[in-house]
């Protein structure tokens, strides 16, 4: 098996870029004490990141996908993590299969 140098370099560049993104925010805030306003922004980070990643689900053009999302929303609101994941996966699979 021969590795292509350019391929390895490209893969390595991905790793380096990604590690820089992981380090950057931490290094920037490591030695600062935050103002209440900056603290409010930091506290909003988890919600804003998570909802942005799954946002495409909310604007799917397929009704069955929106229905599956509704099931996931309901399950996530009511159940602990594991049952919510299982129910969402099974319901989504069934909805796609039968609708």
């Amino acid at each position, binding site marked *: 098996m021969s590795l292509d140098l350019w391929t390895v370099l*490209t893969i390595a560049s991905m790793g380096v*870029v990604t590690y820089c993104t992981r380090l950057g*925010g*931490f290094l920037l805030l490591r030695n600062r004490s935050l103002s209440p306003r900056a603290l409010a922004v*930091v506290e*909003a980070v988890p*919600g804003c990141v998570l909802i*942005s990643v799954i946002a495409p689900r909310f604007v799917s053009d397929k009704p069955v996908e929106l229905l*599956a999302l509704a099931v*996931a929303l309901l399950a996530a609101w009511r159940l602990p993590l594991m049952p919510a994941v299982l129910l969402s996966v099974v319901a989504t699979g069934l909805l796609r299969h039968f609708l």
Partner: protein
Amino acid sequence: MTTFGSSSESLARHPAAGPEFRRGLKESLPVLIGFLPIALVLGAQAADKGFHTIEVPMMAGGNFAGGSEFVAVGLWTSPPHLLLIAAMTLLVNCRHLMMGAALAPLVRHLPARKILPALYLMCDESWAMGLADAKKRGGFSLPYYLGLCAAMWLTWVVFTTVGAVVGPMIGDLATFGFDMAFTAIFLVLLRGAWTGFKAARPWFVSLAVAAATYLLLPGAWYVATGAASGLVAAWFLAGKE
């Protein structure tokens, strides 16, 4: 296991690093259910694009950010456009900047030899679960977080490789419901962070902007624009109070 709890600081905060690490391993299970099929699909797609089998775990383990890996494989040519792929990786992963910033106040007391690998392993799920756990228990548990990360990283590397090896046999996994696992995980984490509508207003800004960006712009801009706009909203809303 001793490496995770050997400093006096860590021992004082978490008298039992071993059980904490194992708690992380155990609680990662729902996430692994989501990782597994997606890892197989990514590995199969990478093999299809001409990756050598060994290059798949190199990417999966060295980069460990699934979204950017799907984007990279989607853009992959022979030879690959290094700058294009590095730039798209930066775009998809610049949310890590905000994630690391949110984590900083909780982990800045840790020595670099612990925090550097801990950040290396930070993915959406381990980060959000680590933060949620810190909120619930009143302190960040590094061994718990590393337990989450170890299980997720290993699963990702092993099953992307398996996907590259078994390749074409697994084309249809995405049509089952497995991809909904991540949505459910993220929604449960959002519920955990919910403290009322007022505090969640930036989330709705993020949702609206990310969704609009997704519909209007090609590629992965929606994560960056959605997250950033929510934080701008949080900044202005906090200023009004």
